[in-house]
């Protein structure tokens, strides 16, 4: 991987001298993605799947080609991919639309992002569901001993691929097996997994996989829900409107099959085209290369933070993780540390509970949360060195 060449692809890195360590929140966008997204507005700007004029046909072709590219990127078929606004909407779609008439339990973990926890809690409130949480050890790993919580009453097991608090991965293989053995569906929150490693839906075994475009160099406002055809059949309608139906009379509606059934109204064509360009971009670099780069960066980050006396890293420092580390410096409030890093060295860090308040509590973080450094393919060893120096200075306060 030629990091220098990669960095030249990102306009923000040319215009701003910031050290961008907030990629878990959203990544920077390469020129190829920006151009692809704007090409829709400059060259197409029409509706897909409705009108029959030439521009509409071209739009339809570009939109569906994007669906195909993105689906292939995650090892899925085009008709297994539903476009959504983001991961949050994709997760809501599954949790809120699943039929809980015979099975009334959802199993998840306390480590989940609010985007998954809140729909589950809302569904529990509305339908009186039973929600159970797999145990989490102090090092952030999921206690596989709690897998028997997944039983024949479980409708859905909803779990992260990679957490946004520690960068650690869930033992999906075992969880998927336990769920399927019990006849439950598995929903994987891939927001932090798909951008950072090769995720093959066909091999993952899960029934649903949700992810966002903006966390993988794509545009904001576009996300995906990938699902098996049979699994989609178990979902009720979610957002309905134009293009979700075959026929409508005032007495009867015949819904389309997935993915169209879940794509009500005019879609984010520009976003889809941009996300497809992001998939192309990441594929050219190679997800394996990105994963290797992140492993190296994660080790450097951990070494840098561990060299600071009285620092605390959340989650295991030996387990595989993406280049994401949440930590605290003794005596320095996380917001203060992050703000000072920005002020002193223009390092963009996230601080707080990262929309995962119960998760941070489970990891033993204080109420104020922690500081999070999350790196991506464009970050360099030199940037980590500056980060280390800056944190050393702040820790000495």
């Amino acid at each position, binding site marked *: 991987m030629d990091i220098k060449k990669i960095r030249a692809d990102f306009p923000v890195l040319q215009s701003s001298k910031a050290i961008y360590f907030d990629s878990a929140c959203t990544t920077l966008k390469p020129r190829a993605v920006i151009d692809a997204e704007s090409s829709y507005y400059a060259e197409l700007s029409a509706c897909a799947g409705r009108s029959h004029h030439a521009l509409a046909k071209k739009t339809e072709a570009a939109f569906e080609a994007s669906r195909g590219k993105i689906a292939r990127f995650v090892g899925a078929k085009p008709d297994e991919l539903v476009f959504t606004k983001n991961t949050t909407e994709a997760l809501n779609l599954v949790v809120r639309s699943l039929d809980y008439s015979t099975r009334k339990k959802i199993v998840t973990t306390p480590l989940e992002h609010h985007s998954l926890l809140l729909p589950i809690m809302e569904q529990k409130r509305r339908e009186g569901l039973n929600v159970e949480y797999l145990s989490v050890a102090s090092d952030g790993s999921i206690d596989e001993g709690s897998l028997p919580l997944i039983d024949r009453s479980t409708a859905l097991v909803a779990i992260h691929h990679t957490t946004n608090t520690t960068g650690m991965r869930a033992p999906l293989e075992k969880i998927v097996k336990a769920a399927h053995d019990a006849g439950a569906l598995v929903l994987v929150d891939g927001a932090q997994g798909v951008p950072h490693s090769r995720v093959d839906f066909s091999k993952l075994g899960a029934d649903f996989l949700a992810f966002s475009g903006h966390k993988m160099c794509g545009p904001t406002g576009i996300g995906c829900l990938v699902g098996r055809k049979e699994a989609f059949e178990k979902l009720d309608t979610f957002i309905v409107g134009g293009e979700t139906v075959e026929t409508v009379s005032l007495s009867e509606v015949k819904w389309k099959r997935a993915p169209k059934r879940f794509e009500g109204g005019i879609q984010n064509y520009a976003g889809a085209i941009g996300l497809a360009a992001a998939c192309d971009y990441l594929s050219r670099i190679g997800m394996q290369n990105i994963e290797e780069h992140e492993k190296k960066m994660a080790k450097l980050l951990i070494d840098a933070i561990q060299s600071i006396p009285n620092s605390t890293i959340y989650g295991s420092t030996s387990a595989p993780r993406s280049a994401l580390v949440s930590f605290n410096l003794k005596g*320095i*409030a996380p*917001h*203060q540390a992050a*703000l*000072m890093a920005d*002020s*002193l060295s223009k390092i963009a860090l996230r601080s707080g509970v990262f929309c995962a308040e119960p998760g941070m509590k489970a990891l033993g973080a204080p109420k104020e949360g922690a500081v999070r450094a999350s790196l991506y393919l464009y970050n360099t060893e030199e940037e980590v060195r500056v980060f280390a120096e800056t944190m050393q*200075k702040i820790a*000495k*306060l």
Partner: protein
Amino acid sequence: MLCFVALAVFLFLSIFSAKYRPLARRAIDCVVKKATLRPCDTGLDEEIKAASISGIMKLSPQGASFLNRHFEAFSLAFTLLFFLSLFFAAQGLYNFVVYGNCNGFEGGFCVYSGLQNAAFLKAPASLDGVSAGNPGANVTLIEFGCYTCPYTKAAEDGVLGMISRYGGRMHYVYKAFPLPAHAYSREAALAAFCANDEGKYWEYRAALFENQSDVQTRGPAAFKDIADGLGLSGFDACYSSGKHNDLLQKSTDECTASGIYGTPTFFVNGKAFAGPGAVFDAENEVKRLLGE
């Protein structure tokens, strides 16, 4: 604590620039929460703290460390100082509006005096008063002063220096403007006129300034002691007769007509100089006119 200060600062800045308005809104939110004993969760305090410590750290890591460790104490002290200065500023403004001087009856230097543009002060119509230097000179320096005013006293060295340096090329005139805020100011002016009758004005004036606090305490007794010390035989009769009442009234009327709002105020060839640095500004003008 700093959100209280931030509120005032950002509200003020918001008048001039819209970019400060979101900060002002956050400060309002924070102040309301603090005032209702809830924690401020706007992050404004943390941002101010981080920005302050980062700024100091670039200059001195030790200083930043000290500030970080005692930030709450600094915040508290800064906030208290802010409210104290706000109180005094408001009190001064009240006095300025009601009494014409922010120190109230005591008079003296008042920062709000600057609100009244010295350019609007009118030069006195006459050159009556105690004078020194060359009456035929092209440069005239007029001082409106009060013998019991500490600011007139503070300017005295500068005035005497000008008389000494430019006396032959400058005409100096002193007009008494006794401020009621200062004890025995009017009586001191009358006493100085009496001393002038016996040719001992400058000695008497020097003694008045030198013993200003004693004069303000003992009044007539102090005037008599100074006169005795200078051997002024006709002082008692002059002072007790009120011989110079009319002269002093004329001087005071002239001051009022000129719009003088504090002492000392100088006019150099009709151009007014008032405020704390007036004597220096007046000298600069004198030098300019003399081509120095």
